[in-house]
């Protein structure tokens, strides 16, 4: 699904990390852990194609659909959840069937607030709305940056069960967090960024 060799990245002359290798197969979850500033977000953005690595190679399987869920919710605050979904599926060109969309909305507990503006939602609801946005294109590989940050324990549990369902459905997932215990419970492998810092 995805193979990366010897990735490194610097910003303004400061080396963030070097020598990272990734090999992720279908239906596998890779957890990326590490302290704040260890380069988790940067690595995930390289995988998502938002940044280029300074060295190394990223090889994604051909025609793979990838989606990214960032720190920020990356949604338009003055749009409702549905308007955001419509906009992003229009520009990405992909959209799951409405039945599947209903199922995901139900699993995320969003069905009653789909018409609400993002700015009117709680932090946890925004996270779930972002998750819905990233799942709507039916990605083969889902890159999730700190999805559990600032979530209460109920929301964290429901997120974990959604991730497990996605894995069973054949999705590959890369997930970052500084909560090793939570990421460890859903991951097949762990990549500790602290081992690659200089």
């Amino acid at each position, binding site marked *: 699904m995805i193979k990366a060799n010897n990735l490194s990245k610097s910003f303004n002359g400061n080396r963030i990390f070097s020598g990272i290798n990734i090999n992720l197969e279908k239906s596998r979850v890779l957890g990326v852990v590490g302290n704040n500033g260890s380069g988790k977000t940067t690595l995930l953005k390289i995988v998502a194609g938002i940044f280029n690595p300074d060295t190394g190679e990223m090889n994604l399987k051909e025609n793979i659909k990838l989606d990214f869920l960032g720190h*920020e919710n990356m949604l338009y605050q003055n749009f409702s959840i549905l308007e955001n979904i419509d906009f992003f599926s*229009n520009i*990405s060109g992909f959209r799951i069937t409405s039945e599947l969309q209903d199922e995901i909305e139900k699993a995320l507990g969003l069905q009653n607030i789909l018409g609400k503006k993002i700015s009117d939602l709680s932090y946890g609801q925004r996270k779930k709305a972002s998750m819905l946005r990233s799942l709507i294109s039916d990605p083969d590989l889902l890159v999730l940056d700190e999805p559990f940050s600032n979530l209460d324990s109920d929301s964290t549990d429901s997120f974990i069960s959604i991730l497990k369902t996605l894995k069973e459905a054949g999705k590959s997932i890369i997930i970052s967090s500084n909560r090793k215990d939570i990421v460890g419970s859903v991951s097949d492998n762990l990549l500790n960024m602290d081992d690659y810092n200089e």
Partner: protein
Amino acid sequence: MNSYSESNTRDIKTLFSLFKKDLKLEFRSLSTILITIVFTALIVVLFNIAFPFGVAQKNEIISIIIWVVFLFSSLIVSSGMIELDTKDNSLELILMYGIKSEIYFLSKVLSVFTILSIVQLTIFSLFYVLFQLSFQNPVIIFVAILTNIGISSITVILGILSVRNNLNQNILSILVIPFTLPYLLGAVEVTNQLTESGNINYILNSLYAIVAFDLIFLISGALLIGVYFKLEK
């Protein structure tokens, strides 16, 4: 349908999706458009009070005020429109989905152009009412559209560069002046001639210059933003 025309159709659809999103967001909050219209109205009313009627070269001075007010309005509009995508980092998603940078640039120019057209209409109406400025020749509308295209392109280029680099809004105002000077000089000259004599023959050279600058800034803007987004990665 071959792959080339398929790709073109997709690009056009994407451009209009981005444009529709910008307008929908803007008309929902009305923040940028209201600030700009209030700013414009305030300047025009202040000048109306300060400006003695019957002064010599009235048309010339009014032509300068029109375009200077328009230029500063364009700065407010373009940074407001660009911030729509940068505030919550939606731009990263847009680019991740493989949207061409030139399509993104053109959609922003189109959005800024549309909002600025509304602002322009307000400016001209206020000048008509408060200064009894007569627009004898409809060519003024054509000039306004051409100047709007160029100023929208320049402010979008500089707006993207400054917002993405967290530069201060004041720096944008300074950067924009040398680039827009050729437009302003041409637009002032044309507006002055059209409001005074209405004779198009005197303004053809200025019109050609405005069209040439439009093409230069639209094409170079699309290329420059593409290179910038690549370097930024």
